[in-house]
């Protein structure tokens, strides 16, 4: 068995090359679209000192990603530390570019968001293992197969999914369709979401996936933790996948409430990301937060219960 282990990297690289040849875009990113002639792997792997199938440079995937996507922006325009798109537009490409300079990234930030320090994040430095509702009831946690890094959600080698989200997350298949994002190909500060954008969250927080009104049923992996949905919204497992216009709700994208807006999917449906940011938020939860988040903003887009008001306008 061991004898054949050396074949693994060869096989994997081959599979990668075959798989990802179609997912290229001309933005300077090293994620996919590999051709046999360019050495795109070298930007992340040290081929020369490879010792095994995991040719990764260092212990920390987070630091690898941040060496391009960090605040310094030394290798990417998406600065996920501050949640900013930092490409000043050049005259030659003005008009084509549809992400505003210093526009706020859709994912939020890991250090700051909207120039304020974050109050909750999906900490991706490899220290977190337990996720809410991963095969257990809402409000409970269970360990993921491996600790949380950037590569838990994204496939650095490219993927047919939106924003190179993995096709397999925590053992669950994930599909998040690519969508037309406008003339410049990528729009990092305006949502152009497919209707299945919640799927990425569901892979780890299955118990929070509630798609039917006033029912115990959902589409989570084992259906274990959701019996309380009927009348109990105390864990805020808000239903998703339905149109926003319930009981005359105002359009949270267009009308908003008090100058606040929330994004919806292509068909104007509610998704997990309507209320939550996947990377991190700087919203404050000073006055309202239920246990276990007494002072934690739970990745919410708006302060306190602001997210509720924008639709229900109560």
């Amino acid at each position, binding site marked *: 068995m061991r004898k054949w282990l050396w074949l693994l990297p060869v096989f994997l690289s081959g599979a990668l090359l075959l798989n990802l040849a179609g997912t290229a875009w001309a933005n*300077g990113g090293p994620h996919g679209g590999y051709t046999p002639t360019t050495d795109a792997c070298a930007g*992340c792997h040290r081929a*020369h000192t490879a010792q095994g199938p995991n040719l990764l440079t260092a212990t920390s995937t987070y630091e690898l990603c941040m*060496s391009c996507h*960090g605040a*310094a922006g030394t290798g990417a325009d998406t*600065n996920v530390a501050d949640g900013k798109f930092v490409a*000043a537009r*050049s005259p030659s490409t003005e008009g084509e570019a549809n992400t505003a300079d210093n526009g706020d990234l859709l994912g939020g930030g890991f250090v700051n968001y909207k120039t304020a320090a974050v109050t909750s994040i999906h900490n991706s430095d490899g220290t977190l293992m337990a996720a809410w509702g991963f095969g257990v009831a809402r409000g409970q946690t269970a360990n993921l197969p491996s600790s949380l890094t950037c590569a838990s959600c994204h496939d650095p080698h490219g993927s047919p999914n939106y924003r190179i989200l993995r096709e397999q997350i925590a053992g669950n298949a994930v599909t998040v369709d690519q969508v037309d994002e406008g003339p410049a190909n990528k729009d990092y500060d305006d949502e152009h979401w497919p209707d299945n954008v919640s799927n990425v969250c569901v892979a780890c927080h299955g118990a929070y996936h509630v798609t039917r009104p006033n029912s115990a049923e959902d589409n989570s992996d084992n259906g274990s933790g959701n019996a309380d949905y009927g009348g109990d919204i105390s864990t805020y497992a808000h239903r998703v996948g339905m149109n926003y216009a319930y009981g005359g709700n105002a359009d949270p994208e267009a009308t908003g409430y008090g100058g606040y807006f929330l994004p919806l999917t292509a068909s104007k449906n509610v998704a997990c990301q309507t209320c939550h940011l996947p990377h991190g938020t700087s919203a404050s939860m000073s006055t309202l937060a239920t246990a276990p988040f007494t002072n934690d903003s739970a990745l919410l887009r708006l302060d306190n219960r602001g997210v509720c008001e924008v639709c229900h306008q109560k």
Partner: protein
Amino acid sequence: MTPTPWTDDTPHPLVPEETTPPPVADAAEPEGLPPAEAGLAPLPSQAEVKSEDEARQRRRLWAVLLALLLALCGVGFLFSRYVRRPEPLPEMLPVPVEVNYPPHFLFAFYDVNGPLGIALSPSEDRLYVTEGEGDRLVKIFDTEGNLLRAFAPPRTTAAERAPVYVAVDARGRVYVTDRLQHAIFVYDAEGNYLDTILGPDLTLSEYIAKHTGFKPRPGTFAYDWFEEEVHYQDPQGRRRTLPRPDRPTWAPLGVAFDAQGRLLVTDVALGAHRVLVFSPQVAAQDDWSDFQPEVWSFGEFGEAEDQLQFPNMVVVDALGRFVVSDGNNGRLSVWDAQGVWQMLVGTGGGGGGLNLPRGLALDARQRLHVVDAVGQVVRVYDFSEAQPEFLFAFGTAGTLSGQFHYPNDIAIASDGRLYITDRANDRVQVWSY
């Protein structure tokens, strides 16, 4: 009379000539007693010959031992001095020959958070280091790593600034690129804010001067990209504001000065990655309230051999060529003095193959040091000839002394010391030749 040449059987003492040449008197002796004439002199007795030989040998032995002892003391002295104050070897023992050996690790200092850029002052007694994390300051250290001061762009919070690379002009003024502010901030040697280069042809003081008709004094004006207004004080000291200038269409990343005093900037504005070359005028000006330097550029965005993707740094070698660390293309891109593309260096495998090249520095012998962030090494190339050659690499991946965790930039002092920002290890490493 010509002295008879020595023959193989001439009795002569076994003195290692390289270490201690025999005393002059002794050396002359065999000449005074050539074997041919030996018969004419009165023959000394066997015992006398023996004791004389022995005495001579003993004397020589002593001489050798003494010399060895002296040498040992010398080495011991150098060693102890080195231990007390680690100093580059070339400084202590100037080596005339050009040998290429990798440098060695001396020490590291840790008063920095995710350090990115590094530059030396002209007198080489100060280091300027930019931070990518925490408070995101620019810090001044002495060359032993003692923190002297820290500074940041006026009116900004940590979340509003992202200092990246830093360069110092011949007068000691400090230029820091900022990726969130899309500007180059200029400070005096102590870190007092002087001005902001807002674009290739606009500074903040010029903008204010144009709109108000007077030249603002350093320290009385400021602009933060995230604010709608420029703040300044009028000549009477009253606080005033102006609408912000048009948002710049550049994204300065790398910054450096060449030997002629030209300001070199890498620009990574979306879709137009290039190198800007400013005339030496910028560094020659006392202030920049009139900022019309000649600027030309080369390079465009892409992965073809004469294109660039996230060029991080640029230096000019002794042959006048521009050498660009073409980050995301994983190579060095070499351009002639006119900005015509010449060749690529560091592509492909082997020790010289680059992963993610970032900071660059040339030493006096035209050895180009390239910090490879993902390779976790510094790769060194000989740029003294038309065809550059890979020499060696140093450093390994890790967190111990002499190991790197996403290093980013390098500065080289003329005494052979190297200062390397070791970003994810939150420290600056000091190496020496």
